[in-house]
């Protein structure tokens, strides 16, 4: 797909929850665990970026109020 679909914070969080749930399964093999671990790290980074961006936006709005 050429365009990246916008995903809300909540959607990303649900994905991460699914990854964690799968990781916690007892019969998971190590290869699957490595893949899930890597996916989880990506999702955490995505959420981290999302929150940083949101905080920046709020700070901009706040400073426009103080003018």
């Amino acid at each position, binding site marked *: 797909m050429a365009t990246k679909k916008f995903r809300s914070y909540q959607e990303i*969080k649900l994905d991460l*929850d699914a990854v*964690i749930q799968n990781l916690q399964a007892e019969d998971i093999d*190590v290869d699957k665990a490595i893949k899930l671990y890597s996916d*989880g790290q990506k999702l955490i980074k995505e959420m981290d970026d999302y929150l940083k961006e949101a905080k920046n936006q*709020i700070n901009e709005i706040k400073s426009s*109020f103080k003018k």
Partner: protein
Amino acid sequence: MEEISYSVSEFISIFNQTIDFAYPLVNITGELANFRISKNRWVYFDLKDDQSTLKFFGTIFNLPGPLEEGMLVNVKGQPRLHNLYGFSINVESIRPSGEGSIKKAAELLKIKLAKEGLFDESRKRLINYPPNNIGLITSKQSAAYSDFIKIINERWHGLSINLVDVQVQGDPAEEQIINALELLNVQPIELDAIVVIRGGGSPEDLAVFNSEKLTRAIAGSRIPTLVGIGHENDVSLAELVADKRASTPSNAAQLLVPDKHHLIHDLKNKRELLDDTISEIIENENILNNNLVKDISDLIENSFKLSDLELNTKRTIIKAYNPQTILNRGYSVVRKKDGSLIKSSSLVNLDEIIKAEFSSGSVQAKVSEVTK
């Protein structure tokens, strides 16, 4: 000297001519007696003093109002000798005379007019406040006029006053004031009020304002009336019948228009109050707004804190499942040559080449024994 003999009619005629020449109009004051009204039109009465009695004849239109026997009245009229009824005075006008009679006549008239409902509160109309145009009936030479104008000018601007200069006492006063009322009632410019004023004076001076005709004329005015006659304690029928009564001419001016100084002062106060109120409202709104902004900020901060906390928890969980961590503890991963995981010894044959991965590095090994 030759005696002249007349017929009765000739004598009456000559007598009347002579009397008319010598006394065209007489003015006689006496006590009212034998007063009677015939056919609701003709009026007969006597005036008397200690020693004499004189007959009078007139119509009800000559009466100033209800009269009572024993009253002292002043009558103007022409002496006449009638061919059938003898000598009498033909009445032109009758006025109560002396304070007691004037008062009594006014009381009688007041009772009569009150019965007709002329003084009823329900008849009183409101005068536009402040008025734009008024009619003023008074004597231009009087102190009442100058007092009234002075106070109006002190208190207000732009009141248009249509003055009708009249006599306010004496014989012509009644007719002049009634004519003035009629005139002002048909002005092309609609008046807000007709004001009738006169300063203080003796009961005789003020008597015209207790006359029936004038009282009725004021009651009949289409335009609302304000009447102020004499001093505080003088209450005339003209005042009682008016839509509004003023105690004096100055008081009439005070009742008619507001005091601009008070209004300006009031306006200033109101403007200050308005300024204060607006400032307060804006200040309160500002505080409210700032509080809201702060509340929203706090909510967002909290939401961020919660999100951060949640994310950190998940980060810790993910970290705990890092396969590398397990290898660090001494576990290792063993695969076939094709890379598939070996989860059981039953999947391995003797002499097969397998690969073991450690926390760091890996080895290839040949299977020398298989324990099932």
